[in-house]
């Protein structure tokens, strides 16, 4: 399979900064992959995302080395609007992303820019609002929304574009727990229905481990791990070593295992932890 994203020896240093924000990133992504990125603040997660949607190097000054190919196109030689047809983005700060004054207009905005027919636009808006569960906000003014509501609008706007690749930078930071789960359900659905390639930066490790298929752990501009969640959780130092947390249920079973009450794999979810505890009993009995 031809990779849909391929990054070779990518390094980037923001203009005026001494330390590189990214150094020596090498990675390829196949179509239809569902990837999570996590890492402490300043690790370079957002910078990597900006390299995928072409903001870097097109709109951000700095020293750029290496190559990023999106669907066969080198981002350096490709116009940003061309890239944005392939890569849909949800930025870290929804306030900065939202430009229109009503929710409906916000979602229509990108579609109109792509020159889409009005009936088609209508269908896409309805579909996106429904998927994200914000039909009720359609005619609301964007400035009067709560933090979480704004974030949902930004996600709906990106989803409406049905890009080939969707990159989301901490899209659930202001969402309530169910809202967060719903967003990941929607992403999973889009991933399965349309084979959409998804890359999502997320601090909420619990939900990330439950949904994604491949996890990138970043620290100080480098990719320090690139493995499926199950492998990562069985080497908790990969996360704790860079100052991140492992889910409380994984930690519990990890401690039971260290104390000899359990032998086996560490759980990723509450459900798996339940089965691990049962097995732990059986093992002792």
């Amino acid at each position: 399979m031809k990779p849909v994203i391929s990054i070779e020896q990518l390094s980037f240093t923001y203009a005026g900064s001494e330390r590189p924000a990214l150094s020596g990133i090498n990675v390829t992504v196949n179509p239809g992959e569902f990837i999570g990125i996590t890492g402490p603040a300043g690790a370079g997660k957002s910078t990597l995302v900006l390299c995928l949607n072409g903001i870097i190097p097109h709109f951000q000054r700095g020293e750029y080395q290496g190559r990023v190919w999106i669907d066969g196109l080198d981002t350096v030689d490709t116009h940003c609007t061309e890239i944005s047809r392939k890569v849909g983005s949800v930025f870290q700060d929804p306030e900065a992303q939202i430009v229109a004054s009503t929710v409906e207009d916000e979602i229509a905005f990108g579609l109109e820019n792509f020159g889409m027919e009005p009936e088609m636009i209508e269908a896409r808006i309805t579909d996106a609002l429904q998927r994200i569960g914000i039909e009720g906000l359609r005619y609301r003014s964007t400035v009067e929304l709560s933090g979480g509501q704004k974030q949902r609008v930004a996600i709906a706007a990106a989803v409406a574009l049905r890009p080939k690749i969707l990159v989301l930078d901490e899209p659930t930071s202001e969402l309530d727990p169910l809202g967060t789960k719903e967003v990941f359900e929607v992403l999973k659905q889009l991933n399965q229905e349309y084979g959409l390639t998804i890359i999502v930066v997320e601090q909420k490790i619990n939900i990330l481990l439950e949904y994604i298929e491949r996890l990138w752990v970043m620290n100080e501009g480098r990719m320090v791990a690139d493995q499926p969640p199950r492998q990562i959780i069985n080497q908790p130092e990969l996360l704790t070593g860079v100052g991140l947390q492992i889910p409380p249920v994984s930690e519990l079973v990890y401690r039971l295992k260290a104390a000899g009450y359990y032998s086996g794999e560490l759980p990723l979810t509450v459900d798996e932890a339940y089965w691990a505890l049962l097995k732990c009993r059986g093992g002792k009995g």
Partner: protein
Amino acid sequence: MIQVEELTFAYPNGLPVLENLSFEIKSGEFVALIGQNGAGKTTLLKQFNGLLKPTRGMVRIDGMDTRKSTTGLLAQKVGFLFQNPDHQIFLPTVAQEIGFGPANLGCSREEIDKRVREAAVQVGLEPYLNDNPLFLSKGQRQRVAFASLLSMRPQVMVLDEPTTGQDYREGIEIMEMVKALHRQGHTIIFVTHDMELVARYAERVIVLSQGRILMDDTCRRVFYQPDVLRRTNLFPSQIPCLVQRFDRYQEEFGMPLSVEEFYKAITDSGGEEYVHCS
């Protein structure tokens, strides 16, 4: 410290956001306010510093009716950390930003400098006092906003999603600072969507659902009534969720909130009882 009596609030466009709320927060409490997006948490917090005033009913801060006092007066009692730090940062240096509140209070130059230094030390921003806040990272900007609040030395600290947009370590660091303030006697009210933080820090939990109070109890009791929480689409932190998968958890494990507590409950039974119960 805070008395809310039959508070109803609607924004000018007519939507009723808070409906007939009555409760009290005593001096020295550590309260988490939780609820779905749009439940009215931020709107409620803004009643505490007079940024919004009741449409009906009353909010009293240390005896003062918010409708009859100025925001300046209330700001000395209630410090407020906004959901987005950038909404409260507007001066060109960190030092000026932190000193803004005390300057407004009419403090002397020395007093301002003293408060700025103390607050900066407390949040670890000393090296950045002459920097422009806009060039700092989001986590650092959150600290600037937090230090600005500390320099006012308010008795009550109201924090709207203080850890949002920060990584795990930064979030814990902020909450540890808050906890230290609580130990010094400050009243803390914070909003968060992170149930792990609620389990770890809050003594009392108020659950807001569509502008009404659904539950108001200790964290432990709230997280061990998941049916009620679910009515407003919330679920407890991971450990209580896991514990409640076991039918007879009460006898077997009690009601643990933390990994530590659950681990103890499992291993204290010497593994023996643990092996047999099922």
